[in-house]
């Protein structure tokens, strides 16, 4: 299932969380979570609905401020860093509900992401045509992810699966070092799931990926490491075989979801 070569490659921790806690008005949604995300690996975060997976994503990307705990990205403490800054440092996320710019075309969506690293975002005195030099890079990404036929379509007019692919294309435009994907394949057809799985496997060779995924065969196929979350706490951790054999996981998660 998993490449022995990848398994053996010395792994570098790029994102880590220690003792992460998030309380919402007395209710503890995330409780004492420790995570280590490695360069070149795909890490799955699984667990039943309401387990706190999205909240963990929000904490790691600083869309939510943790109640307690510490987060480190590429060796720097980001526990108090604002979310946009975290993104600029190389940690980019997708959202559980597909996040595109609906009234922009597919190409414009990707170019929004390309604008920032190319330093073409604050120029209010330049014409729109100054963004033309981002076209080639945008189109290359669009082609790579199989969206070439939809380049000039409004994002709102794409099918659900294609919106998710566009979201990944936009995210990849930033060349993030750590990629957080919240249920990237939810609601997709079989064919699209296979394609997106391929894309993720490909991009993970040069970066770290943490993904929330319900499709366990995908998790078994492409993820090197699995963390199971239940009621905000880590229930089990390890590779897929270990985790899926764990009786606690079987009753808590596989029992109702698989």
């Amino acid at each position: 299932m998993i490449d022995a070569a990848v398994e053996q490659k010395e792994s570098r921790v790029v994102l880590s969380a220690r003792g992460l806690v998030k309380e919402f008005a007395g209710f503890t949604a995330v409780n004492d979570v420790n995570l280590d995300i490695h360069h070149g690996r795909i890490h799955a975060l699984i667990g039943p609905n309401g387990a706190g997976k999205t909240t963990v994503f929000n904490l790691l990307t600083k869309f939510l401020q943790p109640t307690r705990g510490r987060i480190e990205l590429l060796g720097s403490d980001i526990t108090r860093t604002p979310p946009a800054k975290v993104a600029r440092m190389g940690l980019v996320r997708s959202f559980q509900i597909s996040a595109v710019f609906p009234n922009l075309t597919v190409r414009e969506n990707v170019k929004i992401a390309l604008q920032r690293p190319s330093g073409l975002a604050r120029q209010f005195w330049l014409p729109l045509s100054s963004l033309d030099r981002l076209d080639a890079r945008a189109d290359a990404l669009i082609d790579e992810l199989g969206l070439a036929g939809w380049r000039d379509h409004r994002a709102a007019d794409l099918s659900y699966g294609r919106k998710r692919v566009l979201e990944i294309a936009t995210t990849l435009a930033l060349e993030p070092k750590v990629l957080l994907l919240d249920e990237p394949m939810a609601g997709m057809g079989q064919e699209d799931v296979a394609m997106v799985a391929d894309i993720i496997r490909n991009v993970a060779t040069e970066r770290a990926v943490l993904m929330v995924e319900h499709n366990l065969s995908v998790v078994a196929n492409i993820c090197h490491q699995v963390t199971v979350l239940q009621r905000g706490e880590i229930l089990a951790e390890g590779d897929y075989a270990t985790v899926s054999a764990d009786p606690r996981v079987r009753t808590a998660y596989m029992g109702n979801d698989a």
Partner: protein
Amino acid sequence: MTGKSEPVQSGLASAHPRAKRIRIAIIMVSLAGLLLAPHLFYPIFLMKLLCFALFASAFNLLLGYTGLLSFGHACFFGGAAYFTAHAVKIWGWSPEAGILLGVAGAALLGLIMGAIAIRRQGIYFAMITLALAQLFYFFCLQASFTHGEDGIQSVPRGKLFGLINLHDASNMYYFVLAVFVIGLLIIWRFVNSPFGMILKSIRENEQRAISLGYSVNRYKLGAFVMSAALAGLAGGMKALVFQFATLTDVTWQMSGEVILMTLLGGIGTLAGPIIGAGMVVTLQNYLATSEFPVTIVTGLVFMACVLLFRRGLIGEFFASKLGRSLGFRPDS
């Protein structure tokens, strides 16, 4: 994913073949109309109209293109009127320098107000801008340079660049028209620029823009300051046109009026606020000489328009079949 071949440009399939030429023709005819207008209408009425049209356009930069509803824009409009009037009358500055001071003052006020308000959302943002604008109103009421209820009166229009006598009604009109056109071109460029694209993305999906690394509050603040500066441009001009600056222009009613103009015409389009301002100013002019109470009638017109044309007059036209076939795009 790929496979099926769909027409790439399906959205524009119904466009009129000469849409672009027709759009340019509409702009040209409007410009020609504005150039000839002083032969048909009172210049002072036209200049008032242009000042408010620019004010509403500046306001729309914030509401329509940034998605922020400010309830304090009178502060920039009326504040700039005071600054310009004071500089020209007391310090003897040239009209162009006086207007630039008004713009700079309004931009500074915008920076302060924006920095305080920008973190808040929706109604809280509107309330903070209102509160700060009221604070500024009381400052203007108390400060000595504004001359309280009297305002700054008999402001000389002076000579533009030391050459063109602005006391000549026609010279003044073309000066105001030129500033108006420049103001609109600035807005046009601002909206259709790399910065404008980021503003648009923030309006479409703020969370996503943050996750792509954009510090959205800075972009919003940039738009706020630009909107304040252009409102100041309109206010400074108004002070020269009417040759006085008064408390009326810094009241909350003035902030309300510009919202009304913008919504009437339609937000998020360049033409909307201009048409809206034209309607309100014209209506006020007619009603001023009649028995009807101005505020009640404009209020009723506003209600009727909002009920009938949810997107504003121009917004509805752009969204209509004819508007679409001419290639006008209403924003979302």
